[in-house]
């Protein structure tokens, strides 16, 4: 299992890997917002957490469609399907590797974008923390979508369309927890706990669904 994790990490760092692209996309998406809404610092700091979250959500969708398709294209997926290691575990490890290579850099880049959004220190910390806890859920949901679309020739866009609605709860609780940390009356812990629960929930459901879909899609 460790070998699969290490292999996927190597692949995402080597030339043509998507690790850098995701962060770049994230930065660019967040950076164009002030051009749209105008450089009003008060407005930016108010919408900042939401913008950073939406940017991270879109960026983490980027490489997801290749999660299984790349394996299928070169035949590796067949060999993985034949194995006695439970397929769920294989999918889970692939998700973790994918998140470490593409999701974690987004989390690390988010404080910088928080500064651009004129967010204060507490808000930046809250967004970073909620992203850290919430973004794995996006990968887990995405794995199910990627598995469903694995045999489709142009599945990339379809994966995004399929899983974007499913990520809405993650976005809702992530953003509301971030705001709760800044604005006084709202408590931070309940939405944050919900966010963590969603991630744990999808950590089980996502790989299960993906494994089921991969078995069914095999031909």
């Amino acid at each position: 299992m460790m070998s699969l994790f290490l292999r996927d990490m190597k692949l995402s760092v080597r030339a043509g890997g998507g690790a850098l692209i995701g962060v770049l996309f994230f930065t660019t998406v967040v950076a164009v917002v002030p051009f749209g809404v105008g450089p009003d610092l008060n407005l930016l700091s108010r919408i900042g957490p939401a913008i950073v979250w939406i940017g991270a959500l879109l960026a983490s969708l980027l490489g997801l469609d290749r999660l299984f398709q790349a394996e299928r294209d070169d035949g590796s997926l067949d060999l993985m399907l034949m194995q006695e290691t439970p397929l769920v575990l294989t999918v889970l490890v692939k998700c973790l590797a994918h998140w470490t290579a593409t999701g974690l850099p987004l989390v690390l880049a988010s404080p910088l974008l928080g500064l651009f959004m004129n967010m204060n220190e507490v808000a930046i910390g809250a967004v970073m923390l909620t992203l850290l806890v919430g973004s794995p859920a996006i990968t887990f949901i995405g794995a199910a979508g990627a598995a469903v679309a694995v045999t489709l020739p142009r599945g990339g866009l379809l994966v995004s369309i399929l899983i974007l609605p499913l990520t809405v709860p993650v976005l809702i609780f992530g953003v509301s927890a971030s705001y709760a940390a800044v604005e006084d009356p709202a408590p931070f812990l309940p939405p944050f706990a919900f966010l963590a629960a969603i991630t744990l929930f999808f950590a089980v459901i996502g790989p299960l669904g993906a494994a089921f879909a991969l078995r069914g899609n095999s031909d």
Partner: protein
Amino acid sequence: MSEPIPAIKKFSDLANPTVFLGLTARIVPFLAVATALLFAVGLYLSFTTEGDYQQGETVRIMYVHVPAAWLSMMCYSIMAASALGTLVWRHPLADVSAKAAAPLGAGFTFLALITGSLWGKPMWGTWWEWDARLTSVFVLFLMYLGLIALMRAFDDPARAARVSAVLILIGFVNIPIIKFSVEWWNTLHQPASVMRMGGSAIDPEFLRPLLVMAAAFTLLFFTLHFLAIRNEIWRRRVSAQRRLAARMANREA
């Protein structure tokens, strides 16, 4: 490198990577020593000159911030010249130069952004402001990163060279925008004060360390650029040798 280095008789001889490697081996030590000396002098001056009566000690950030910002633009200009070299004269080292410069440019731009941010907090009360100069420099940073990603995405260096050269030239539009942004739009960032019509607006007390630091940064850039070009040439040779090894293995079998 034990092989004898062919003599350089005309400018086009520089296109030969072996000649270039020989030249690099001779020049880089001098450049490195000169850079170190200039930095020693520059940093000494930066910390011993008086602070500004308004800005206090924070004015010393300028000695890093301003040269880094200059370099970020100069580096892009060098990349644009290299891109022209690739597209127009098909100079074999031009795309190596462009590829080697991109991470350096990104580094200097990042340094300029960070130091500017550190300077901005005490001066303007905010880490970041979406003002024309800052925004355009930030866009420049994103362009550097995009170019790095593009150059890495190709297997074939020749194809990567042509495609990225086109993109570099298109992106060159941003450089005049950065340079004149502070004059076209009246924004928070102060207008150019060192190089302008009618003499410098800056006190000689600050100007001296600034110029020394600028020279040091420029030499640093060239030292690193030479080294990066050398590394890229070596990387391509290794890659070529590996492909050759793969073909040879077939013949033996």
